[in-house]
């Protein structure tokens, strides 16, 4: 048979590996490494050789390997010393095993006495050992191996149901004392499982199924032992069974064999009755019990269902359940189940394995159905299909619990030094730049000539993007890590100020780059402090203003395009603009003749050294605070915008880049120099010739875009560059600053879109108003990054000056 040949080929392959392994192990053993690991490995190798040989009927090999294995077993557990003599004998034995394997493979016969000498020496060593040891289990007399290892030829054909063949019954030495019963028999079995039976995953139902194959079977569940509910121990075993089995051809040994695996885990009594004696065990009538139902007749087809129905009815009756109660009772589940909850779902988790074959019913399911349910009560003899009702729910529960477990197991992580990640981030950043440089270098002629190259560059661009996203994801962390520190802060502030404040957080799973997160903590703390200290009013004031006594600070995070918005909102009094303006004027931040808009006044709270608190509080009113927030946020490429509604509250919006490493920008030309404008802030670009500018009395210009007037900033003018471009050939880059306020930047040319790696100006030079940083372009030129937000807000100061 070719299958057998395949197995043999596998076996001989394996043998050659095992023999190599033996050689290696013994090389080490000879060198003096005689530790347990090596001996175990040697033992396993010989054991495996023997196991396969037994399957193929290589009896000579089995015989020798068995004797050798026994010796090794003795050596392994220290009964025989691993002397040099023994080592040498073993090495010789390895060769003999190899020769046997080879003989088996080629079909050549070895001399009948081949290896006998060595085997005799094994025997002698073992016998020498046996003299001073008792009849220990492991010490099989080596001479016996011929009897023990009668090879079983494997029938590799299709499986024939075991039911048809009683040949599977082994002559079990424990029971073969009983004479074979050939006359028609009537057997009575009392079966009382212990907890251990369930703990080892045996199932009475399966035993009954196997018994039913032997003959005509009746099963009666003995439920009298089940105590009243108050005394019920969830894991105790109360249920036992009485079985009658009628068949002319069965023997006690055959019955015993069914219970082979549960021997010791149950009490079992088997008795043979005469044909004429009816099996009738009087049931003790418990006080609450109705007369015990008649034993249901079990056939191979209906046994499970009937058994269940029987138990269902009987137990329910015995326990006298109220049908409305939703208390479930589980008489006996696995003994080691750690906890018991009286919900009907609970058993499903422990027995999930038994639920997969829907029509089958395990004992645990049986137990489950004891719970009173809206399912109509069934007659004991008719129930077959309705019993499946609990199964689907239970099964899905089981799956849930197991998949839940998998999920937690599935989370795998490694700890990596942040420096390493940052190196990768940097290199990816450079790679992105190089890639965009390459793309930039491809002019139309090259594009037309090298289409393959162009395609390659496109793929490169895509892959680089993906790589960049993946690397960024490594660094990303949920803002939760920052948010989680704030509830305590708010509690402390509330206590100190005597205010009542509750903190709400939204979107705390939004992920941002780790560096951004780290830089976020201080500004956010300041902002929340500011809201609690200056925003939220005292409970009395709030009540007087008709607001809820408890003030709310709402903290939210969300992703908006390439940005993360973090919003701190409070329902306090809002910014006192009069006071802010007053202070600003006093401190010379705003010139007396300038009348800033409400929005501009609100932004003044970010001006350096600005504080409006009448008294310097120990919480947030030292005049350092909001300006620190602003500079911190700017440092990480973000911006802050504040919006206030008098009497209603204040909203501060932090706009942060998703990542610090790479910025999507539009490359523009101002004068002769390249500048970049962050793409995230650009709304649209317009040719100046098509834009409608209007002069305003103050001397400035505004741009009318769809009915909206937008402040115009000529970048050449602003950065003191000389523009040589004709006014109508210049472009307007319409940008959106915080709070949806727009600003129109006039540039000389628009070069294109690309990605840049931000280099800090502050670290390498110094802070420059209106510039967020610098970058090195693909061609090696340096370009400055336009800080739209700061351009817009500095106008106020400029005007003021």
């Amino acid at each position, binding site marked *: 048979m070719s299958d057998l040949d395949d197995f043999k080929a596998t076996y001989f392959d394996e043998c050659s590996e095992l023999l190599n392994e033996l050689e290696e192990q013994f090389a080490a053993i000879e060198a003096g490494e005689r530790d347990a690991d090596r001996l175990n490995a040697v033992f396993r190798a010989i054991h*495996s050789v023997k196991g396969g040989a037994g399957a193929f009927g290589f009896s000579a090999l089995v015989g020798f390997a068995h004797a050798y294995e026994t010796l090794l077993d003795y050596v392994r557990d220290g009964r025989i010393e691993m002397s040099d003599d023994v080592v040498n004998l073993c090495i010789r034995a390895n060769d003999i095993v190899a020769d046997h394997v080879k003989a088996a493979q080629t079909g050549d016969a070895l001399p009948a006495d081949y290896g006998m000498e060595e085997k005799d020496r094994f025997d002698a060593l073992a016998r020498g050992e046996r003299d001073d040891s008792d009849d220990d289990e492991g010490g099989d007399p080596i001479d016996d191996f011929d009897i023990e290892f009668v090879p079983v030829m*494997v029938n590799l054909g299709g499986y024939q149901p075991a039911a048809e063949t009683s040949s599977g019954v082994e002559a079990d030495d424990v029971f073969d004392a009983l004479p074979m019963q050939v006359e028609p028999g009537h057997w009575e079995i009392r079966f009382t499982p212990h907890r251990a039976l369930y703990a080892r995953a045996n199932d009475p139902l399966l035993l009954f199924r196997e018994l039913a194959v032997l003959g005509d079977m009746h099963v009666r569940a003995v439920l009298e032992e089940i105590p009243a509910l108050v005394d019920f121990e969830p894991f105790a075993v109360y249920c036992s069974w009485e079985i009658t089995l009628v068949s002319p051809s069965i023997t006690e040994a055959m019955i015993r064999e069914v219970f082979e695996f549960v021997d010791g885990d149950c009490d079992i009594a088997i008795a043979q009755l005469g044909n004429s004696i009816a099996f009738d065990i009087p049931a003790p009538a418990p006080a609450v019990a109705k007369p015990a139902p008649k034993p249901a007749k079990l056939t191979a087809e209906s046994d499970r269902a009937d058994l269940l129905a029987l138990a269902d009815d009987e137990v329910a009756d015995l326990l006298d359940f109220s049908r409305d109660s939703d208390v479930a009772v589980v008489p006996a589940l696995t003994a080691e189940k750690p906890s018991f909850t009286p919900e009907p779902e609970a058993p499903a988790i422990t027995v999930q*394995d038994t639920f997969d074959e829907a029509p089958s019913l395990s004992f645990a399911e049986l137990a489950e159905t004891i719970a009173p349910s809206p399912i109509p009560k069934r007659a004991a003899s008719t129930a077959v299909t309705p019993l499946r009702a609990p199964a689907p729910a239970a099964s899905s529960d089981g799956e849930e619990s197991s998949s839940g477990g998998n999920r937690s197991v599935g989370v795998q992580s490694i700890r990596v030094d942040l420096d390493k990640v940052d190196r990768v981030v940097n290199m990816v950043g450079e790679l992105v730049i190089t890639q965009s440089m390459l793309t930039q270098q491809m002019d139309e002629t090259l594009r037309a000539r090298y289409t393959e190259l162009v395609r390659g560059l496109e793929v490169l661009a895509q892959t680089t993007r993906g790589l960049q996203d993946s690397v960024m994801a490594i660094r990303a962390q949920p803002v939760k890590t920052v948010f989680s520190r704030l509830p305590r802060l708010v509690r402390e502030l509330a206590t100190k100020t005597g205010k009542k404040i509750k903190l709400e957080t939204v979107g705390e799973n939004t992920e941002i780059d780790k560096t951004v997160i780290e830089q976020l903590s201080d500004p956010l703390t300041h902002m929340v402090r500011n809201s609690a200290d200056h925003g939220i009013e005292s409970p009395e004031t709030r009540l007087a203003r008709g607001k809820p006594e408890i003030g709310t600070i709402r903290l939210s995070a969300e992703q908006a395009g390439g940005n993360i918005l973090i919003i701190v909102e409070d329902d306090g009094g809002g910014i006192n603009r009069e006071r802010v303006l007053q202070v600003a004027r006093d401190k010379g931040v705003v010139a007396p003749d300038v009348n800033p808009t409400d929005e501009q006044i609100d932004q003044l709270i970010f001006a350096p050294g600005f504080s409006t608190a009448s008294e310097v509080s120990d919480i947030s009113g030292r005049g350092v605070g909001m300006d620190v927030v602003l500079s911190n946020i700017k440092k990480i490429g973000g911006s802050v915008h504040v919006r206030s509604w008098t009497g209603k509250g204040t909203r501060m919006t932090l706009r942060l880049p998703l990542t610090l490493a790479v910025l999507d920008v539009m490359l523009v030309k101002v004068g002769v120099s390249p500048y970049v404008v962050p793409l995230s802030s650009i709304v649209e670009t317009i040719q100046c010739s098509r834009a409608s500018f209007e002069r305003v009395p103050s001397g400035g210009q505004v741009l009318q875009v769809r009915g909206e007037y937008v402040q115009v900033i000529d970048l050449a003018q602003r950065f003191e560059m000389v523009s040589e471009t004709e006014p109508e050939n210049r472009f307007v880059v319409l940008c959106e600053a915080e709070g949806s306020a727009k600003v129109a930047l006039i540039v000389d040319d628009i070069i294109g879109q690309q990605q840049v790696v931000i280099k800090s100006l502050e670290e390498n030079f110094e802070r420059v108003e209106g510039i967020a940083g610098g970058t090195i372009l693909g061609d090696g030129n340096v370009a400055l990054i336009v800080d739209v937000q700061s351009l817009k807000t500095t106008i106020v100061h400029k005007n003021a000056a």
Partner: protein
Amino acid sequence: MTILRVLTVDDSRTILAMLHHTLSNAGFEVLQAEDGKQGLEVLKTEHVDVVITDINMPVMDGIEFIKNVRATGNHQSLPILILTTETSQDKRDQGKAAGGTGWIVKPFDPEKLISVIHRVVH
């Protein structure tokens, strides 16, 4: 009828191959592991109806494997059959004490193997 999944754990490829052949011929779906540790890994992710495990294995032997399986919350009712050539009662008892459901003696007779599996699994 649902196809039953059997996890076979043995360090011998020959035995694994033979089990695979016998079991798949009998309509089982067969999963394989070469030692107890691998077996535990399989059980973490795969649903299995019955386990057949060798005792003598490297890395993690069958006894440890069974103990570990039984220590896992949702595998307490998973039938585990010990596959062993040990003719002595010794290993069998150890396996049983660790939580083994039953045993199969190598070299196994295919019919006997299947009937034993049906004794412990629905």
